[in-house]
């Protein structure tokens, strides 16, 4: 109810609205200067022929050559499946986290985030070794007699799904968790007392109320998945080629900017269409995870109404089906009024979520024993025991410098992205500004576009600004990629923040700045930390921008790994990954202790 009041109290757009919206301008200027301007210059080429005349030839070629539309179709298909699976697998985990005690939740969150700390290059190779023909998993399956011959787990659609879902699930879990945490536990209890069995109570009430989280997770995962290229190229088979791979090849091998631009515009347009449909069906406000906005099922669009009606019917059907299954189970094990009920569903949830979390941690944990191998390959079981790869790491100035630089760049990126993103999020949530949808779309666009396009565009811009090969250039590039995550997560927490606290602070004599610093920011710290984390990771794991705008002379960690990876998968990578995992985990635990002390104080 308080939410409705906050919404209603938002002042209407007045003439001074564009002045009041000033905190959004730094981000807008940033995005315009370092994304829209350089990228538009590149994409513009797609409309110009080599003689400088306007042409649609590139678009005609892209649209009439079946392979490109097919690849685009595959890209969306892979992204859709990734989204569905990441949500399907992430939901029980998020649900378990949301319904656990605080301590348990924090410990589990650490595990869920674990994939983040292992470079995606290492993770992908870990999967190749784990799931290969002679890999650990197949070995286990065969020796246990579960299968007769090794399964084809990678180099096909399954492999792509494993790699991509694994990469995307932490994001999905965190996005869903932020909404689930705010569902009133009494609602499900109320449903039970009103005669709903477990199934109906879950689907019609809890699930229904968690849908904004699913929608936000879905959109973030989908958009991020569209731009993937490493996973499909290393774990995919003959038919798993994504449009980013094609665009990268057109840029790098064929140096055909015009055509790459046309393909990129096609990808952007298709994504915008999905975005539009999403807005019509679910409402963009779901992005920021406000349960109330989506709870309001009354939307004007025919599409929206048809969609939600079908959705409600589906949810009802799921509710009855679950209950039917439950009833069937009860005929086998009739419940007794004189014996305590066993929490079977909780047990099953624990097992399922536990397995999924194990899946998330597996590659990260896998590299630990592997890093102590005495052999010269990443293999399992590792050959002998030695610290030689750690020695290689610590004695190589390149590795150590790259690590330091990566941390510096990632921290700066996290800082800049959090400041810019938070300021913009405050305006986007609290003020009715014009082009709100367009601004959100714009901010999200860098996630869709293949990074190589952004990287090249930035190079041309940086050359004019003397930013090539600088840390500043890296930070700017990474901030463009990281800021969408900050905006979305901070918007989500701001929606839950009671603005009257600020009003109270103002009446108590605090200036707007003081109220923001001392009241608002401490209250939304959770969102800021999550946003910072996503930004940090985006930078920490980026290869493309680092490869391109530095020319290789300002090496970051993924860049250094890439060098090492070119000829072989060197165990140094496992050693580095282990070190980072240990370091980051220690850092988070420490930060958590500090945070708890701060909250307690």
């Amino acid at each position, binding site marked *: 109810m308080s939410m409705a009041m906050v919404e209603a109290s938002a002042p209407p757009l007045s003439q001074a609205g564009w002045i009041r919206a000033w905190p959004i301008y730094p981000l807008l200027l940033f995005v315009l200067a370092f994304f829209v301007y350089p990228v538009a210059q590149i994409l513009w080429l797609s409309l110009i022929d080599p003689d400088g005349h306007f042409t649609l030839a590139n678009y005609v070629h892209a649209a009439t050559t079946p392979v490109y539309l097919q690849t685009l179709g595959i890209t969306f298909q892979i992204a859709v499946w990734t989204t569905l699976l990441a949500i399907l697998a992430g939901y029980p985990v998020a649900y378990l986290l949301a319904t656990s005690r605080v301590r348990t939740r924090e410990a589990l969150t650490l595990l869920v985030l674990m994939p983040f700390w292992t470079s995606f290059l290492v993770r992908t190779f870990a999967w190749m070794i784990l799931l290969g023909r002679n890999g650990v998993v197949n070995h286990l399956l065969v020796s246990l007699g579960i299968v007769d011959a090794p399964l084809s787990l990678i180099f096909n659609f399954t492999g792509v799904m494993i790699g991509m879902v694994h990469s995307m699930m932490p994001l999905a879990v965190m996005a869903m968790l932020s909404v689930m945490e705010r569902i009133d536990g009494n609602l499900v209890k*109320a449903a*039970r007392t*009103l005669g709903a069995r477990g199934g109906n109570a879950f689907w019609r009430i809890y699930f229904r109320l968690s849908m904004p989280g699913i929608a936000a997770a879905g959109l973030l995962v989908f958009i991020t998945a569209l731009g993937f290229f490493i996973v499909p190229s290393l774990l995919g088979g003959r038919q798993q080629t994504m449009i980013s791979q094609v665009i990268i090849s057109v840029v790098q091998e064929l140096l055909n900017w015009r055509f790459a631009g046309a393909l990129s515009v096609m990808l952007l347009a298709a994504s915008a269409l999905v975005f539009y449909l999403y807005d019509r069906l679910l409402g963009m406000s779901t992005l920021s995870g406000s349960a109330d906005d989506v709870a309001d099922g009354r939307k004007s669009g025919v599409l929206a109404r048809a969609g939600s009606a079908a959705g409600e019917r589906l949810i009802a059907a799921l509710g009855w089906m679950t209950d039917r299954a439950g009833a069937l189970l009860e005929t086998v094990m009739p419940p007794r*009024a*004189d014996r305590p009920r066993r929490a079977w569903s909780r047990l099953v949830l624990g097992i399922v979520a536990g397995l999924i979390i194990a899946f998330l941690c597996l590659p990260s944990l896998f590299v630990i024993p592997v890093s102590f191998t005495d052999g010269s390959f990443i293999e399992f079981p590792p050959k002998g025991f030695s610290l030689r790869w750690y020695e290689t790491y610590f004695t190589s100035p390149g590795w150590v410098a790259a690590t330091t630089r990566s941390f510096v760049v990632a921290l700066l990126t996290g800082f800049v992205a959090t400041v810019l993103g938070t300021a913009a999020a405050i305006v986007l949530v609290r003020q009715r500004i014009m082009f709100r949808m367009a601004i959100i779309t714009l901010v999200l666009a860098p996630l869709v576009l293949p990074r190589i396009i952004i990287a090249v565009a930035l190079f041309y811009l940086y050359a004019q600004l003397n930013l090539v090969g600088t840390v500043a250039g890296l930070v700017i590039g990474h901030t463009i990629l990281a800021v969408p995550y900050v905006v979305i997560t901070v918007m989500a927490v701001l929606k839950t923040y009671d603005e009257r606290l600020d009003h109270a602070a103002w009446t108590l004599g605090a200036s707007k700045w003081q109220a923001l610093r001392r009241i608002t920011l401490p209250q939304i710290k959770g969102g800021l930390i999550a946003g910072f984390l996503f930004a940090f990771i985006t930078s920490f794991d980026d290869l493309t921008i680092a490869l391109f705008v530095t020319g290789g002379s300002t090496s970051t960690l993924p860049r250094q790994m890439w060098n090492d990876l070119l000829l072989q998968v060197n165990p140094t990578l496992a050693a580095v990954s282990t070190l980072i995992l240990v370091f980051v985990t220690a850092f988070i635990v420490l930060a958590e202790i500090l945070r708890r002390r701060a909250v307690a104080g």
Partner: protein
Amino acid sequence: MAAPASGAAREAITPDAPVKLSIRNVGKTYGGITALESASFDLRQGEFLTLLGPSGSGKTTLLMIVAGLVQPTRGEVWIDGKLATYTMPDKRDVGVVFQNYALFPHLTIRENIAFPLRMRRMPETRIAQEVARVLDIVQLPHVAARLPRELSGGQQQRIALARCMVYGPSIILMDEPLGALDRKLRDRMQLEIKELHARHAITVLYVTHDQEEAMAMSDRVCLMNQGQIEQIGTPRELYFKPSTPFVADFLGESNMLDGTLEKAGDVALMRGPHGLAVRARTHQVIAPGDAVKAVVRPESVRLLREGETADNEAAGDVTEAVFVGGVSRIFITLTQGVVISAKQLTDAAVPQPRPGERVRIGWNIDHGVVLKASEPAR
């Protein structure tokens, strides 16, 4: 609009009325912490029983056990003559009104009320009729298409009640349903709930920490403290015949005089500090020499005029006299050193005693109770 509970409904609760709910030695332990010691009572058809107590007294735990949302560690719960200790909440035929109403935010009022009917697979036409019927009862037929957050607190409260009543559960459980409302609205809702209860002969188990609310609404009150039932009885019984000092202290105001029992019997004699003698009723078995407390309600303490007498009399000086409108409160320090508070209706014709003034006070035997001083053994 709402009249106080009609006598007819009250009379319906006879000892012959069927027992709807029977709680037998129910207890709950979380880890090593005992939330509920051991509770037993019966709730009869049409009865309004309130679980009253300070926070942490176990009343909500007990309510949740009845609702089936918490499983007891020991004891039995019988609903409508059937054992239901561990029965699923949806199979119990109870209705719960939650503290914050727990209206489903994504469903309209109509759908909220229809929810229990849908769960019972009632045909659509019947559902529409039933929803309309209860909306009429709570006098909110015009809000059917709205969402919960578009209603005021009081309206939400009534809808929560309507949602509970619509499927005619055997018992309605209410967990501090008026806690979130402001004073005036709360008073009005008390009357409304009371009236609905009386008119529809609903069996209600109610939880509150507000003693006035409990007294005003209940047929019987179950006063709980530290996971245990202190006393069950009608509001009058609890007020005038408290069985423990806690009950006496918790309900209303009371003068509590410490002393030792001198003479047992129907009319007990207690000797207080400095020889202050108090004669009062007792309904406990107390041996002479035991430490006791005598409880006298301030409104029973009279300022005696010249020549007026009472069963118990004492003299003292007025320490303070407070005029609070219809009622005046006077604090008197007795010659024995004890402070007694007296409450009387303000009479414009009679001047208020001034501080320092010597007065005589008194009260009758029937207005006092002598209780064992020690807390009952746990």
